[in-house]
C-alpha cells in the first residue's frame, strides 16, 4: 500500500513535468515559426480549466484543457481557428499524448475576448477499456 502511494506521487510529478514540457515545446516551435515567417500569427499554448463533461479515464481533476491562443500578428478567422484544431487532432500521436497526460479538452482561441472553439479529445482516438482492478 505504501509502495503504491509512493508510485502515485512519483507518477504525479512525472506527469506534471511532461505536461509542462508539452506546453513549452509548442511555445518554442510557435515562436521560431513566427520569427522565421512560417506562421503569420504567434500561437501560445497554455493549460486551461477544460470542460467538465469531456472527462475520460485519464482526465485530471483540475486543469484538463490544452489551450492554444493566437497572439500578435494577423487576426485569425473562425475557419482558420478550426483548421488549426483539425491539424492538431489529425496528429494521432499528439492526441494520444495529450489524453494520457490528463487533458480532455482542446481549445483554440483568438486574441480578442474569449471567442474560439473546443473539441473533446476522446472523440479522436479509440481508447481501450481498462480493468480498474488491475
Amino acid at each position, binding site marked *: 500500500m505504501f509502495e503504491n502511494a509512493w508510485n502515485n506521487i512519483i507518477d504525479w510529478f512525472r506527469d506534471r513535468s511532461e505536461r509542462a514540457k508539452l506546453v513549452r515545446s509548442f511555445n518554442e*516551435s510557435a515562436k521560431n515559426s513566427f520569427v522565421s515567417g512560417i506562421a503569420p500569427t504567434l500561437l501560445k499554448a497554455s493549460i486551461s480549466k477544460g470542460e467538465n463533461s469531456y472527462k475520460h*479515464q485519464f482526465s485530471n481533476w483540475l486543469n484538463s484543457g490544452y489551450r492554444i491562443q493566437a497572439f500578435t500578428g494577423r487576426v485569425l478567422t473562425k475557419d482558420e481557428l478550426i483548421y488549426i484544431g483539425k*491539424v492538431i487532432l489529425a496528429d494521432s500521436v499528439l492526441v494520444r499524448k495529450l489524453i*494520457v497526460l490528463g487533458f480532455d479538452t482542446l481549445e483554440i482561441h483568438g486574441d480578442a475576448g474569449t471567442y474560439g472553439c473546443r473539441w473533446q479529445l476522446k472523440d479522436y482516438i479509440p481508447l481501450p477499456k481498462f480493468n480498474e482492478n488491475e
Partner: protein
Amino acid sequence: MKMNDTLIQDSINVANKAISKISESDETTNIWMWIALAELVIIAYLILREKFKSKVSSKQQFKSESLKQEIDFNNIINSSFNSEKLYDELKVKCHPDRFPTDKEKNLIAENIFQQITKNKTNVKRLLELKEEAIQKLNINF
C-alpha cells in the same frame, strides 16, 4: 525393599532433572524457530513483491507507450498555416484523371492522390509526395 524405594526415588529425581533440562532447551529452540519463520516470511514477501512489480497494468503500459513517442511541433505549426494551400495545389496537379491514356502513370497518380488525401494536414508528408509526383509523374509545379 527400602533400597528399592530409594532407587525409585533417585530415578524419579534424575528424570525430573532431565525433563527440566529438555524444557529449558526447548525455549531456546523456540526462539530460533521464530527467527527462521520471520526470515521465511521476509524472503517470501521480497519474492512476491518482485513478481508483482513486473506485472504492469495495461493502463500504465498504454500510458508509457504513448509518452515514448516524439512530437514534431514545427511540422504541426507549419501545417496549421500552410498545408491547406499545398493540398489544394497537389490535389489538382496529381489527380489520376489527368493521366487517362497512360495506365502506369494513372496507377501511380491514384496512389499518390490517396496519400495526399490521407495526409492533407501534414505539410512534411505533402512535400515528400510533391517530390515523388515530380519524379514519377513529371509534373511541373
